[in-house]
């Protein structure tokens, strides 16, 4: 009767490299196109507000007159619906994930050319 069918695989695993990675010393190469983090090219943005309408979690706020675009990073689910909807293609998805945060502040972007400019935060 077949017994110990797993032996070959188990022995192979015993003498092979581990399947796990020594994170954070060794980071995983994320494939291009991974939806990690939303970024905006604020200079191209026309503040039309379409991204705010399309966001399923209401994580984006666009103020047309004050020329401010802000995002609640913890509310963003990285679905890229706004990226597909933006008429000026100024939104894009980076591969890296958002770093951990201690407070739930909104992250605001304003074009640098318009005085008085609030400094653009990273």
């Amino acid at each position: 009767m077949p017994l110990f069918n797993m032996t070959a695989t188990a022995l192979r695993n015993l003498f092979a490299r581990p399947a796990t990675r020594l994170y954070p010393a060794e980071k995983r190469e994320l494939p291009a196109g991974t939806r990690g983090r939303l970024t905006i090219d604020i200079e191209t943005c026309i503040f039309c507000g379409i991204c705010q309408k399309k966001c399923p979690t209401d994580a984006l706020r666009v103020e047309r007159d004050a020329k401010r675009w802000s995002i609640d990073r913890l509310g963003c689910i990285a679905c890229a619906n706004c990226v597909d909807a933006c008429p000026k293609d100024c939104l894009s998805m980076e591969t890296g994930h958002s770093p951990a945060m201690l407070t739930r502040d909104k992250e605001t972007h304003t074009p640098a050319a318009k005085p008085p400019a609030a400094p653009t935060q990273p």
Partner: protein
Amino acid sequence: MATRTVIPFGPQHPVLPEPVHLDLVVEGEKVVQAIPSIGFVHRGLEKLVEKKDFTEYVFVAERICGICSFIHGMTYCHGVEQIMGIEVPRRAQYLRVIWSELSRIHSHLLWLGLAADSFGFENLFMASWRIREHVLNIIEATTGNRVIFSSCRVGGVARDIDDATLKDIVARLEGLATDLRNLGEVFLDDTTVKHRTVGVGVLTKEHARELGAVGPTLRGSGVASDMRQLKYAAYGDLAFEPLVEDGCDCHARCKVRVREIGQSIDLIRQAAARIPAGEIAVKVKGTPSGEFFARTEQPRGEVVYYLRANGTRNLDRLRVRTPTFANLPPLVKMLENCDLADVPVIVLTIDPCISCTER
């Protein structure tokens, strides 16, 4: 007359992927009756449809469950498209089939790992999940995320896969063939594994039909029923027959799922060979009005989405009947007169996805 004790099983149990509660009435070591109770992860997602725009609800639908997420999103989009009479481009339909089958492969590999864990074979559990990592890498490269794909939209799909990547996907899946065969041999031929699964959790063909079983639970009891026979998406163009086993026990269901992984790889190969060029989405204009029962085949069985729309941007009613909900009565039947030690194996054999069940 033996005394009866009630032993609570769940919601916290090492073998359960998601919380479900069973009150097991036992006499000695034999379970006489099992009484289920759910509601631990009820999120009221059906009510959320009243607040979300019908095009945005697809993101909520795919988060009903993490393992079968793409097919939830696809069924929702399929339902809305049928109500509105939207003709989805053929290329998008083929891409949906490819992602559905990838979803099925990763779900069955996940289940194989959990089943091995339920009878204590941790090494086999890790081996299954190690193979599953390769499938998740393919999914991440094509959709952007490992588990929640976010690639289905009403009217089509959000991303395209070019031909070179399709060839690479087929090559990578075929590269897993040796590992999958070794895994299959352990699950289906090894004597110790068979000792835990053969003759355990018997559900006869009559009971399976009477009690409304779906998916591999039904096909493992000899009934050839698979919703992919309805020819939604591009399944009408692909050669497909439901896989049936007659064992009616946990071993038969395990065999159905192992064979379905091979079948899914074959379907992906067929789809990649026949995929036509073209658009991947059409623009959605207007609002839906009408009703439809969308039925598709998830890895766990038949899922039914009842959508009812009244011409506004919010749907009037969305009712999701997931396969695990339909498999709860058969589970209660299978647990009658089983040994207490077999309860984890039997609970896992229906592939419980409780977050689907409770939405």
